Structures are given as C-alpha cells and as structure tokens.
C-alpha cells in the first residue's frame, strides 16, 4: 500500500498537474459542499453573469450534504454523494475556474475532457463511511442557499481527508482502469 500524499487546498496548478489517477491523497484546507440544486443555482448564476457565493478558482467542491450537527460536534455524518448527477453543470464550473471535486462514481466524457482542457482534478472518496469521515472535518460554516437545508453550500475545514485521484489532467480514469484490471472473463 503506497503512503498517501498530503495536499492542501486551494490547489495550485503545479499540484494539479502532478496528480495522477490512482494517487492516494490526504486533503487539508477549505472545501465547499454543493450538490444537486446548489449546482443548478451556480450554473444559472454563471449564465446570467451574476456573482457566485464561492470563488471558483480557489475552490474544491465536495459533493456532500451532512446529517444535522449534534450538540458538541463540528458536524454530523458526512461523505460523498454520487457525482454523475452534477455532470451536466460541471464543465461550465471548470471553465470558470473550479479546480477540484470530491465525490463518488464515474464522470461523463464531457467532464473528463474539461478536466484536461482547463487543468482540474476529480477525487473519489469512499461512500457510506460518513461517521468515520466526519472525523476529518474540523469546522463547518454556512455560506449560501440556506433554504436548501442539508443541500446548502457550506465551507468545511478538513484535515487529512482521504481520497484517491480518479480523473487527472491527462484523461485517465481510475474506475475504468481498475475495473478492467480486476474483471474475470470465464
């Protein structure tokens, strides 16, 4: 098992270029939660030329919506939701500077192409281990779209959040490669 590499957000161009599909990383710094409806709103704001509640070129988006925070905790349970639902909106966000995303599951060819063209990276996290993952979140702060409840945009401060590079700037796709490698044809 390789030792994971520690990286910090915001992601720099050099770090992004040096990340390759299959690399294990521990991410620290700020990330922003946003999923389905928040993506529609960000996308529509971009189309209308309105200001966004987050600074895309400095941002990593975590496709997640936590459980309510119990008393005395920094956050409830939190983990990645399935990323393909954001595929429609993602190329536009990347085009406008978004540098990284954390989620689970495969991305569309359009997203993979945008990562290559504009230099961004897609990390996969393990789904369904949200009580464990919550331990990597130090702080959560509401940023925008409060009416969306769990789906609102929150700024999280994460420390050594484990993830793996799925799609890099070279067009590689870890899910496809790994599944091909382990497939048994009887």
């Amino acid at each position, binding site marked *: 098992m390789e030792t994971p590499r520690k990286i910090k957000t915001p992601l720099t161009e050099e770090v992004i270029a040096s990340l390759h599909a299959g690399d294990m990383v521990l991410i620290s710094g700020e990330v922003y939660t946003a999923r389905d409806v928040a993506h529609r709103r960000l996308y529509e704001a971009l189309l209308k030329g309105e200001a966004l509640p987050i600074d895309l070129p400095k941002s990593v988006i975590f496709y997640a919506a936590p459980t309510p925070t119990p008393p005395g905790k920094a956050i*409830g349970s939190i983990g990645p939701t399935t990323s393909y639902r954001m595929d429609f909106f993602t190329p536009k966000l990347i085009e406008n500077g978004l540098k990284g995303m954390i989620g689970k599951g495969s991305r569309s060819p359009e997203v993979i192409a945008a990562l290559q063209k504009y230099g961004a990276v897609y990390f*996969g996290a393990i789904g369904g*281990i949200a009580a464990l993952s919550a331990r990597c979140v130090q702080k959560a702060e509401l940023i925008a779209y409060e009416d*969306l*409840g*769990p*789906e609102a945009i929150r700024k999280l401060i994460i420390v050594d959040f484990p993830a793996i590079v799925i799609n890099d700037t070279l067009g590689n796709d870890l899910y496809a490669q790994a599944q091909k490698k*382990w497939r048994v044809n*009887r």
Partner: protein
Amino acid sequence: MNMEKKTKKTAKVRQIDCKLITTTVKKLFIEANTSLGKDVIEALRKSLPQEESATGKEVLVKIMENADIACRSKMPMCQDTGLAVVFLEIGQDVHIVGGNLREAIDEGVRQAYAEGYLRKSVCDPLTRKNTQDNTPAIIHVDIVAGNRLKIIAMPKGGGSENMSAAKMLTPAAGSDGIKKFVLETVEQAGANPCPPIMVGVGIGGSLEEACILAKKALLRPVGEANSKDERLVQMEKELYTGINDLGIGPGGLGGRVTTLAVNAEMMPCHIASLPVAVNIQCHVARHKEVIL
C-alpha cells in the same frame, strides 16, 4: 351457543394504539441508521480474506470501522439517512386505535429524523423543495393471519436506489434474459451505489409487484439462500459469481468483492410477461424490525 362462538372469535382481536406505532417507528429508524445488522457485519468480515486487491481490503476495513464508530457514538453510518420505507404485516385480527395509521407512521418518521439528527432527504419531485421532515414514508402493507403487527423500517439511500431498474422481458428471454439484465444493471452502476452492494431481484408478478419483491428480497439476511425455490438458489449463486467477476470491487476501485449477496424472490406472472426488477442496496444495508 352461537353467541358464545362469536364472542370467542372477537376476543382474538387485538387493539394496537397509534401512539405505540409512532414510538416504534421512531426507534426503528434511529436504530437502523446507526447500527448495521449482524448479518451484514459478518458478511463484510468474511469478504475480507476473499478480497485480493490491497485498496479493496482497505475499503472493507474502513467500512467495518465506520459501522463500529457509528454504533458506539450513535451517529448515522451514512449521511444519506434515506427515504423512510416501511413494510407492515398487519394481522387480520388487529384493530388499530387512537388515530390514523398513515399519520402514526409519518409522525414516527418525523420524530426519528428530528430527534435522531438524521438528514431530511425528501423533496417535491419538480420544485425540489425539501418536505423538511423526511415524510411521507413509503408504506407497503401485507395483510396476514393472526393478531400481531410487524413493522420493518428500511431507510433506503438514494445512491443505490438510483442504480436500480425494472424491465418487462419477453417470456422467451427466460432465466438467461433475467441474469443478463441483472448483470447489465450492476455493471452500469459501477462505483455509484457504494459497493460492496447487495442485489435484490424480483421476478414475476406485475411491474410494481416485481419491484416490491426485489425490495423485500433485500430484507432477507445476507448469506441465507431462497428457501422456497431450488431454481432461485441456483440463480442466486450464478449471479453472485457473475457480479463479483465484474471486478468493480469495494468502493468501485477494483477487486473481487462487488456484492455480498444476491437475493431473489419470484411469483407467477401473466402469460404474456416476464417482469424483472433489480433493487440495488449499498453496504450500508439498513433495516430493523419489531413485532407488536
């Protein structure tokens, strides 16, 4: 004489109060979200030596560690605490009193999701506006003999539900067609439904009955084969091997362990049809039950 018989019969009728139903539903949803079934934990433990991929092994270890933390700290295992699916087996001699059954169940869900710090994940399909309390519950009812009430709470995650599918096959497709459809559905799902998964297969009935059978199949303990039909035992075995041969692996990162179980249920169908439903469940395979 006749009178006496009648009184004897009505004496069998049991009253169950809606308040008890509400508190039971509340307890079951909190429990289901924080503690994984022993059968699933055992299946995960057994899958560890079968997994040859180092990454796959690590994912399995983390899944078990998460279940342990969640159970000890009473935290939800997954942030998606699910749509509230409820199965009821109502004895025909049960009389529900003190309110309305649907309202009693929804109130139990409401209390569980508020007091248990569970995420409210239900919304209007078009406006996407959250209903704020995770209601309405999805309720499936069976009327059975006796005077007991069985309540099964199954918080069902969206990620795995989204990867499920139903299809009306032609009778000519037969069991090969069924297996092909199941394998295609799982392969397309890939990493999305948080593998290792469990696969519920419903065969026959009507379109909606096949879907309900598939979901009910997920309630059967992991590792227990279909007890009613030898043909399904065989099909479950073949699909289990076929799915694990896909190589999707834990977390979808490649490996030997893609599914922990394939559970199939079947019932007769129309001479023109062969309905098949595949209900995918993630490793956070939650359900708890109580008999009142």
